[in-house]
């Protein structure tokens, strides 16, 4: 297979993954409405190119941490939709045995070493993993995903400083969807382009079109390779948007009229689909078939997940202590 063909296959895979994330999240919304999932959830429709493009930069041995809005990264890493639905339904077959829930899609075997419900907490953990690799002489790196809101919390600056001082192989990825929970970025944040927050830490800060999966993958791959080679950390700001509110109960009334529609004109799946069609890699008909297939798979996965058992409370005791 030529490099071009391999690249084409890879991008078709990304196209499928982005639809998987999109339709998974839509299904989650539906299951919530139907009462099959409780609690809260933080959906990532609109941000698929960030998850897929960045995760595709990882190779075996690399790890990442993400956030309570982490379904996209988990699925891009290879967690099956059924495992994800089972987790959301609190089933023993969930990735975290149903103990973690929506905010903790974790699978260490896939390099997913954390999905954190505390803003900013995943950054130092990724720095620690990267420090391990450095001390162990392993050629691996760590990614850490977090929102624009997290760039105002102490651990963001603490983590960037430590990573810069120690030159740990870590790539910091701001998923800037313009809102920290319900608050527009500029009502809470002193910096317009958050990538500039790399400057005082002496590391590259790069603004990326977070709607273009090719661009995301290119920039993250370069940053990760540089980190692994001992070149130090980077801060990447993905300019993107979430189509839904912060969490399940948020109707996102704080958005300016027309803002959502303008972002949907730059939908990440549409952008990749248009390129794949124009380049003769995946026709419009093939794309429609792919979407339909993903939808069928998602529906079947949710049905299977709902049949799985739950652990007893006493069975979860084994997860409190290792010794």
């Amino acid at each position: 297979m030529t490099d071009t063909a391999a690249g084409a296959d890879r991008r078709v895979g990304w196209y499928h993954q982005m639809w998987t994330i999109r339709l998974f999240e839509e299904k989650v919304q539906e299951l919530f409405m139907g009462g099959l999932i409780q609690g809260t959830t933080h959906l990532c429709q609109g941000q698929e190119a960030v998850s897929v493009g960045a995760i595709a930069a990882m190779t075996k041995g690399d790890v990442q941490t993400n956030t309570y809005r982490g379904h996209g990264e988990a699925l891009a890493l290879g967690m099956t939709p059924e495992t994800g639905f089972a987790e959301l339904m609190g089933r023993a077959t969930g990735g975290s045995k149903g103990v973690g829930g929506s905010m903790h899609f974790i699978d260490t075997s896939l390099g997913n070493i954390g999905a954190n419900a505390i803003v900013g907490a995943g950054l130092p953990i990724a720095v620690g993993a990267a420090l391990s690799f450095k001390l162990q002489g392993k050629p691996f790196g760590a990614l850490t995903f977090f929102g624009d809101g997290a760039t105002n919390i102490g651990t963001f600056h603490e983590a960037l400083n430590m990573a810069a001082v120690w030159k740990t192989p870590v790539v910091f990825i701001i998923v800037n969807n313009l809102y920290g929970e319900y608050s527009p970025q500029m009502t809470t944040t002193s910096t317009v382009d958050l990538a500039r927050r790399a400057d005082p830490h002496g590391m590259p800060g790069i603004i990326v079109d977070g709607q273009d999966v090719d661009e995301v993958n290119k920039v993250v791959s370069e940053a990760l390779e540089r980190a692994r080679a001992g070149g130090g950390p980077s801060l990447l700001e993905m300019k993107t948007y979430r189509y839904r509110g912060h969490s399940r109960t948020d109707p996102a009334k704080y958005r300016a009229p027309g803002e959502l529609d303008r972002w949907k004109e730059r939908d990440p799946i549409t952008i990749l689909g248009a390129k794949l069609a124009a380049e003769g890699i995946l026709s419009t008909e093939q794309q429609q078939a792919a979407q339909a297939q993903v939808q069928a798979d998602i529906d079947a996965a949710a049905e299977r997940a709902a049949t799985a058992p739950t652990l007893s409370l006493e069975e979860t005791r084994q997860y409190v202590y290792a010794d």
Partner: protein
Amino acid sequence: MSTLTEPAPADDAAPVAVELTYREAINAALEDEMAADPAVVLLGEDVNADGGVFKTNIGLPEKFPGRVLPTPICENGFMGVALGMSITGMRPVVEIMFADFLPTAGDAIINQLPKYRYMSGGQFTVPVTVRISSGGGAGFGTQHSATAESWFMAQPGMRIVTASSPQSAYELLRAAIRNNDPVLFYEHKVLYTRKGPVERGTISDVGTARVVREGTDLTIVATLLMVERALAAAEALAADGISAEVIDLRWIRPLDHATVEASVRKTGRLVIAEEQWHEGGWGATIISKLAQTRIPWKASPSAVSLPHDLLIPYSPPLEAEMLPSADRIAAAARTAVGR
């Protein structure tokens, strides 16, 4: 440096009796664990500088190059780093310079270290030991003198242990580092210069209190600096014909209620000696637990604690008055036995 992940060799060396200060015992425990397991690293503020602030780390940077890592002053950040290291093959020991700084790392201590394994459905082990210099009596003032030993005791997923002597510091720190769960290891800064016999090579078990003096008339339970003060009180009481049993509680989580209860069943009297306010601490927890048990009390249990609604002052005579003394412990004991 790939040798850092090789498994630890078996520790089959016979214990060797030596005379060490408390800080030397901590140093010896660190050295022995770092020698036994290349995954053990020490990190924290100034840990490599001149032996660290309390001189517990002397010689370690030279003996273990690259494994004593100074951090910036950012407790929450480097505690998170330690967690990240622990789930990727390392066994970090984190030094917290003063216990009073622990709340700065509150998220890591409450939400991350003890919950990380559970909420992943058991995918992780989190072998992080947090060494904490704690306690008053050294003139460090209101924000540098807390023992803080009970601040996190209600948190499942966490182990909490206190060291009252060179021997216990040595064997408990080795046990803490070997444990596969996060452990808060409390040292007392007044004790660093205390000297005593240490069986080098011993490793404590987890969750057991020690009866450090046997007695029949009452039970005194203490931790950290209060253990030697309780022993001094017991000595004074003995001169008056009162036989006090002294328990060094050691582990606050898991707390050895069985040893405490067995002693109180024997003596029928209990005095808690604690360098903390009584509310919400291990002393109150012990009394609560015993209240839920049929104990043939001969006197009501009592506690010698930091005075209610006062804070720890700098002024040395005032600070001395603030901390429970052997005299106050003995007085509470005399009240309990009615003499």
